[in-house]
Each structure stands twice: as C-alpha cells, then as structure tokens.
C-alpha cells in the first residue's frame, strides 16, 4: 500500500492539513507505521498505532530508526478491543479492501469516532462514495472468462464450473486504458465514516440506454474523500488512479445487448455474513418505461458472490444448528484440555494425543506440528 503514490500522497496531504503540533493521533491498521511516522513528522505529541498483525514489530523498528520510538505506542490489537489512555485529535486509517466493504471497516470507524476521538476531532477518511458502471469487453468475456469452461481447448466439458465463474469477482484481462463504458458511472451509496454503523449497503440505480452496445461486466469502485478537499478516485480510466485497491468487476450471466431507449436497473447489495461480505447484483433490462412499470423484464440476472462459493457444510454456521464434534474436533478438544492443565510440554501433549487417538492418521511429527500450531495461536 505504501507503494501507491496516489493513495499515499492524498493521505499525506490530509494529515498535513489536519495534524497540528502537540496533537494526539490514532492510526488504525498502522501496518509498518507509515501514517504514524508522518504524523510524528508533522509534530504530533503522541501516536497510538494499532495493528493486530505481527507486522507491527517491523513498525516498531522503523519508528526507532526514525527517532520516533518514544512518541509512538504500538498496540498489537484492534481499536475496538483497547482504550488508549487519551482521546485523539486526529484518527487516521485505511482498512479497506478492494472496496470499502472489508470487515470490520465501518464498525471500527463508528466505534473510534464515538469513543476515541475528541469532540471536534478529525477522522480520516471522512467518506467513501460507491459507484457502478457497466462496460463492454467482448474479448475478455468470451476468450478469457468463458473459454476454459465453455469452449474448452482440450475437448472437455468443464461447464459445471461456470456458475462459480460467473458469480465471482473478475480482475484479469482488462487494462484501465481500454475500459469501454457502455452505461456510465452512477452513485450507489455514501459511507459516512464515524456516523454510519450499519455495515451493509443496498442500492438501486437505473440507466436509460443512449447508445447501442453490449454490457459484459459490472464495475464497482469508490471515490474517497479523506477530509474536505482531499480526494482520490478508484474509477476506471482515471489516469492518477490508486492501484492498491485493484478493481472490482463482476461478469454478467450473459452479454447484455443494449438498444437506445431501453432501461437497465441494477440492484446492488453488500451483505455481511459471519465477518465476510457477500455481494449481490441483480441486473434487469426493460424494453421501455411501461414494461418496467409492469415488471416485464427482457432479461433478469440474479447473481451473488455467494454462488461462487462451495457450500462445504455451510449450514453448520446457522444459529439454530446443534453441533457435535467430529474426528478432528475431538482431537483438538483433547489437545486443548491437555494445554489447559498448564504443566505439559508440547511434546508430552503430542505423545498423549497420539496414544489416545491412534487412528488420527498422524505420525509423531505431524501430531507435534498440530499441537505446536494450536499452541502458537492459543497459548500464552
């Protein structure tokens, strides 16, 4: 992310306009600490830099190398789990994914804004605006997206994979310069960070087709407003576009042939399921306004990234499901119970697990490896 100059320059400018000498700053998702360091350069009295990833250790070294070790407190946790000793004048973060919908982005800013920011303080980013457009890409759709599955070069029927392919995000085979937009960008939603608590997004937008063309892909992007007057755009075809976010493109179930006067309606939803977002996009084509009013669509595609997932026992996540432990669950429960005794080495735990579960399919080495892995994640 640090390599992306568009993003970095915008964030640096937002910090330059916001941080005053003597300020307290909170950096959410500091990574290797770049925003915390810049805040120190701008005169921040102290920075609390949060990062749950072990990468935070590198941030500490970098802070020391730059003489800021005593002004930055690195906290290996989420801001939602810890209360620093003082509230901040400025809170900064970039915890988006390709889109702003990366859990727990929205709820983290909401919590930080209300709990960790001084009254009148500044939250960076201020808002993201979400946009959608449709573009034409005949070659990418036919030759790159479909070919291995529909026109298989080895004469194999691979079409069973097609529902997954056509419901997944698509990022290959499109150069920014060649984006041929057939239905121009329209705003879907505005995410007002700090004020918004609902992590979901639901929007419906319509286009009246002006020129004949074919839509193959839906393109979703955001424009960021870090503070008033400091912005950047991840829109397709923008020359100084930040590259770190990639691009979120979604194929249509089939190419959508468009004629002037027709109406296209898009319903786009971002839903949060068990800390993961799924996207739904319903694309409807109507011959005219009367048909739209009568709900008589020429084409109607209901797509979702949920359909791109193997189910793999997903019903077991349902709140009403009553789980029982399977073979691996029993083994891990046994290992945890031995760890809880608090006086056994990993080697002793692995040996007792092997003798209790002789049919686990593990030898001494792989059992020790499992115990070690659980120890790294869960012991203290």
């Amino acid at each position, binding site marked *: 992310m640090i390599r992306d100059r568009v993003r970095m320059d915008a964030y640096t400018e937002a910090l330059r306009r916001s941080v005053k000498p003597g300020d307290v700053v909170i950096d959410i998702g500091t990574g290797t600490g770049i925003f915390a360091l810049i805040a120190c350069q701008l005169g921040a009295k102290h920075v609390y830099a949060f990062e749950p990833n072990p990468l935070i250790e590198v941030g500490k070294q970098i802070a020391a190398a730059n003489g800021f070790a005593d002004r930055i407190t690195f906290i290996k946790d989420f801001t939602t789990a810890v209360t620093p000793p003082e509230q901040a004048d400025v809170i900064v973060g970039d915890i988006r994914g390709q889109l702003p919908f990366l859990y727990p982005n929205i709820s983290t800013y909401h919590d930080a804004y209300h709990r960790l920011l001084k009254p009148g303080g500044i939250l960076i980013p201020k808002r993201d605006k979400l946009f959608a457009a449709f573009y034409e890409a005949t070659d990418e759709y036919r030759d790159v997206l479909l070919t291995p599955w529909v026109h298989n070069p080895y004469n194999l029927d691979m079409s069973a994979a097609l529902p997954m392919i056509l419901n997944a995000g698509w990022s290959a085979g499109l150069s920014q310069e060649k984006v041929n937009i057939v239905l121009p960008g329209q705003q879907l939603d505005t995410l007002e960070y700090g004020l918004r608590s609902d992590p979901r997004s639901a929007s419906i937008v319509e286009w009246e087709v002006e020129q004949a063309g074919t839509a193959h892909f839906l393109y979703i992007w955001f424009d960021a407003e870090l503070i008033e007057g400091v912005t950047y755009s991840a829109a397709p075809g923008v020359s100084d576009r930040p590259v770190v976010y990639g691009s979120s493109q979604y194929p249509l179930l089939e190419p959508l042939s468009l004629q002037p006067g027709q109406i296209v309606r898009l319903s786009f939803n971002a839903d949060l399921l068990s800390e993961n977002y799924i996207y739904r996009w319903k694309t409807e084509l109507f011959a005219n306004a009367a048909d739209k009013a009568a709900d008589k669509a020429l084409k109607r595609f209901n797509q979702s990234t949920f359909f791109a997932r193997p189910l793999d026992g997903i019903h077991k*996540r349902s709140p009403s499901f009553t789980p029982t432990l399977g073979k691996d669950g029993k083994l891990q429960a046994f290992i945890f119970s031995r760890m809880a005794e608090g006086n056994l080495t990993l080697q002793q735990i692995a040996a007792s697990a092997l003798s209790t579960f002789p049919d686990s399919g593990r030898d001494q080495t792989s059992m020790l490896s499992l115990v070690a892995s659980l120890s790294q994640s869960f012991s203290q």
Partner: protein
Amino acid sequence: VAQQVVAAANVLFHQFGDEAVILNITNETYYRLDQVALSMWRALTESDSVAAAQSLLLSQYDAPEETLHADLHEFITYLKNANLIDIRD
C-alpha cells in the same frame, strides 16, 4: 393454489454438488434442503402457481395426491413462517 411462490428478497438459494441451502441474509440463517425439500423448493419457485408446482411434483414422485398436497402446504407454511418466501396472488 393459483397463488405464486417466490423467494423473498433477502433470501439466496444455492445448490452445490449434493448440498443445497437457503440462506436468509437478514438473520444469517442457513436451511439445508434434503432431496424432497429441494424438489419442492425448485417446483414452487420455478412454477407460475402452487397448483403447477403440485402437478410437477406429482409427475416426479409416486405419492398419493392428498399426501403430496398436505406435504407441500406444510412446506409452504414453514417457508412462510421463516420469511423465506413471498406469496403473490
């Protein structure tokens, strides 16, 4: 029986291999469908009316009409109570 059953707006149906689920996005509840329930769901949501769905199922299953009618309506009631379907006149 002339009414039509459609999946509710916040419901996703997904079949993958031998497994099929209905997901209620609003409360993040998954419903696993066995083979009979899967046939009923498909018949209901792909037919123009409950009567058409029942006829389709009668052609697929060797079951008395009264039994199938009762089972189908019990299934519809369950789906409706779980907010998984809308019923249109």
